[in-house]
């Protein structure tokens, strides 16, 4: 494998690499061993800490938390896609006022931390936790998705737009029949990646007492009766969170591969499966 950094290794380099490999494997195993030893020595695997998880009530508590997380995610995903569409339409509009208003809204909501918006809606507007969480997530992800949609429409080959206008289509028809279908197909990986960000951010609900997955975990972890099983709770919750996000990321990656082979997307460059973390004033992430 030739890269800019090194060539295909010869026999002496291969030996050296094998030596490095052995050394680094030994170091990593020592590190892992140290962590496992630490876990055992601080008594994280005692029966008292783990038996609560065998009770149905505890399992149902965790599942309910997971359900609430997914509920918040589904609501936020649908609403931010809708909001993104609306704001993108505004930004692509011919009318200066619509463009100006949408630009201000998009830039403002992208620059604000999500947590500040969620807290503002929860404290100042005194909304319920679920509504505050979904609203905050929608405002932020909707703005980012608006930028993704817009850059998608702009990245369609100019020829497509010119041909559509030459055939006598009006602006709305050009958008709905020619540009948007191609743009959405091309941007699908970036859209799904942004939804992964939304899923991760549902855990912010924990900070405004929304009873989601992390909250359910904390309830169990801070219980004196169960001997404060903090590490076991983390060991159970983390793989589930990581697994869910990995599934979505993998979906984005798979969609990206498929769309590259899709003949309907010839006139557009398919986006990378990366979330739309563009600088204000936007550079597109490379494919």
């Amino acid at each position, binding site marked *: 494998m*030739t*890269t*800019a*950094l*090194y*060539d295909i*290794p010869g026999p002496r380099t291969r030996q050296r*690499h094998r030596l*490095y*490999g052995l050394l*680094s*494997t030994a170091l*990593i195993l020592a590190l892992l061993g140290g962590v496992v030893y*630490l876990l055992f020595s*601080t008594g*994280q695997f005692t029966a008292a800490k783990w038996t609560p998880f065998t009770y149905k009530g505890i399992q149902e508590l965790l599942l309910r938390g997971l359900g609430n997380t997914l509920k918040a995610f589904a609501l936020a995903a649908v609403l931010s896609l809708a909001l993104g569409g609306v704001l993108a339409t505004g930004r692509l509009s011919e009318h200066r006022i619509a463009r100006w208003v949408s630009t201000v809204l998009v830039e403002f909501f992208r*620059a*604000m*931390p*999500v*947590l*500040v918006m969620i*807290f*503002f809606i929860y*404290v*100042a507007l005194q909304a319920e936790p679920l509504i505050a969480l979904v609203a905050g997530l929608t405002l932020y992800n909707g703005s980012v998705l608006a930028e993704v949609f817009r850059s998608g429409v702009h990245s369609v080959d100019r020829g497509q737009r010119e041909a559509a206008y030459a055939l006598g289509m009006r602006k709305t028809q050009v958008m709905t029949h020619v540009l948007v279908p191609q743009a959405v197909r091309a941007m699908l990986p970036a859209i799904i990646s942004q939804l*992964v960000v939304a899923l*991760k*951010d*549902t*855990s*912010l609900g*924990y*900070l405004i007492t929304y009873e989601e997955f*992390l909250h359910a975990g*904390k309830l169990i*972890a801070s219980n004196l009766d169960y001997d404060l099983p*903090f*590490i076991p709770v*983390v060991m159970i*919750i*983390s793989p589930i*969170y*990581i697994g869910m*996000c*990995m599934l979505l*990321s993998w979906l984005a990656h798979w969609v990206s591969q498929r769309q590259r082979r899709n003949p309907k997307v010839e006139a557009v460059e398919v986006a990378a499966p990366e979330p739309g*973390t*563009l*600088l*204000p*004033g936007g*550079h597109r*992430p*490379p494919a």
Partner: protein
Amino acid sequence: MNVLLDNLSLYGKGLLGTVELTVFASLLALVLGFLMAAFRVAPVGSLRAFGTAWVTVLRNTPLTLLFFAVVLGLPRFGLVLPFNLFAILALGCYTSAFICEAVRSGINTVPVGQGEAARSLGMTFPQTLGGIVLPQAFRSVIPPIGSTLIALAKNSAIAGAFSVTELLGVYKPLSELGYSIIWTFVWIAVGYLIVTLTISALFNVLEKRYGVAR
């Protein structure tokens, strides 16, 4: 308006806390990110695996969960640090995964021919790396790193819920004192805008000087 003028020191302390978190976590993230990127492009298999595991786990973990595990979990292993150090640790490690990906894709934009030409001229690995690959990679890596650090500045708001002095936490004492909630938040928002726009301006300057079309 009164909110700001009456509580300038409170807002100031919060802003300082946010800036401190951002600066130190950015440094940690850059160092760890470069290290992990080096692991991921190394010719040694186990280092590549470690780097990939690091990036995959941290990119797919919610930051709140990471804070939860670090601030409330590490003390059980005997590691007792002040809260803002824990926050810097959590933020830095989380962002390092994104920086690693940015740096790696930057290295990948350098054409293979550059490396081959350098080696055929007899340059050693450090010379190739320092004189040819890194300067070119650096140029194309500026916008993604800039947007990642802006995201870090915004994520620092989470630290407020874990007993760290920062800007968002300022709303609680102010709302108890009875000030108008809306104006309290307006000035908090302005504070965050100052931080993110500063980083954005800094990276715009860097890009104008060094940047190149990807």
